[in-house]
């Protein structure tokens, strides 16, 4: 039961107006082959959930430049001038989320949790419109889960069942997003047989992965 597929099969799962999570931190740990495919396919009006909008010529930043996004939920846009320009021109909706809150919201989505209380953002504009809950004298914001139609994940190694190993700082949001989407597509640098990875080195269990392409 191998989940290894061709790029075209992966792209067939991605359509206009979907919400897509894409792994990576300023492009490190982003599946660039799948981004190439999205650019070529030209899907539009996507909602992107990612750590940041990377750079104009790298990772998800290229999808900003190609104007395929309707909305982004990220923690940082400062490295991609085009994101700020489109935001100010009201061509792109930008929701800025503190990075740790973004990680927890995605984790909640994947873990069946209805939300989480975080101290981050209390007393700032991040709290606007959110429920505040005080416990033992400390005030928290109730932050809600995030889920996606599709997650695009970059792995260092994958086995054919979809078990994944990430490398160094390329791990970042990838394991969280692999849990939080209805359909999970992985781009792996190396694909090995099921059983070739030690069960303890696996960072994402294959059970949550739907499709693997070689990247």
């Amino acid at each position: 039961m191998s989940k290894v597929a061709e790029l075209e099969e992966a792209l067939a799962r991605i359509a206009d107006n979907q919400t897509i999570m894409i792994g990576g931190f300023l492009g490190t740990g982003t599946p660039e082959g799948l981004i190439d495919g999205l650019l070529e396919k030209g899907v539009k009006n996507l909602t992107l959930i990612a750590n940041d909008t990377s750079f104009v010529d790298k990772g998800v930043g290229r999808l900003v430049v190609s104007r395929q996004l309707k909305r982004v939920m990220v923690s940082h846009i400062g490295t991609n001038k085009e994101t700020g320009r489109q935001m100010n021109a009201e061509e792109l909706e930008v929701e800025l989320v503190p990075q740790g809150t973004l990680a927890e919201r995605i984790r909640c989505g994947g873990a069946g949790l209805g939300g989480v209380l975080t101290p981050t953002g209390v007393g700032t504009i991040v709290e606007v419109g959110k429920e505040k809950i005080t416990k033992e004298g400390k005030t928290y914001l109730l932050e809600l889960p995030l889920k996606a139609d599709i997650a695009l994940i970059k792995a260092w190694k994958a086995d054919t069942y979809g078990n994944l190993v990430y490398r160094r700082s390329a791990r970042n949001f990838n394991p969280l997003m692999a849990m939080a989407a209805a359909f999970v597509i992985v781009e792996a640098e190396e694909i090995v047989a099921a059983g070739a990875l030690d069960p303890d080195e696996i960072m994402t269990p294959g059970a949550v992965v739907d499709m693997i392409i070689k990247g």
Partner: protein
Amino acid sequence: MMNSREIIAKRVAKFFKAGDLVNLGIGMPTIVANYLPAEAKVMLHSENGFIGLGPTPAEGEEEKDVVNAGAAPVTIVPGGACFDSAMSFALIRGGHLAATVLGALEVDEKGNLANWMVPGKMVPGMGGAMDLVAGARKVIIAMEHTTKEGNPKILKSCSLPLTAANEVDYIVTELGVMEITPEGIALRELASGVTLEEIQAKTEANLIIPDKIDIME
């Protein structure tokens, strides 16, 4: 001839398709593993922290750190993966399990399940059962149809403390297969040689009898 437990386990195994991730509770549900054909490629989740629960190792080949949720030595199949308890229950609660199979003390027509305590008598704790029942995409109860004393376990309303409310999808017993629907408990399959009168007599809840009922195999 198969005994009741084997009949139930064999039928439950047919619920699964290739790629499904399934958690089998301690006790009778564990026997289901014996009836999963290798080609079914069902992966078993062990709540103590791994996917890929495999058969009991040969004597002398046990590893102290490879045990199931009942502390019995097991193996991990190729493609298996280990993780911590937060991840184990993220998989459970997050809907990543196609199904969980659990025993029951009582089930009722609203899909309520009681299987974790008898006040004043047996209070073992819920372990992972409450999460499994709340989180798995399909909850299948595998149990003998009545108590040892012959009393119904499929009730109009559970009397024992609940494990979860409105979460059970199917009940498989040695007498038949039942589905919990918004209207009540529908009989889907009847074991060979069992009459409608017999299964209803052993069930407190009123069974909905559709036009078509398959033979349970």
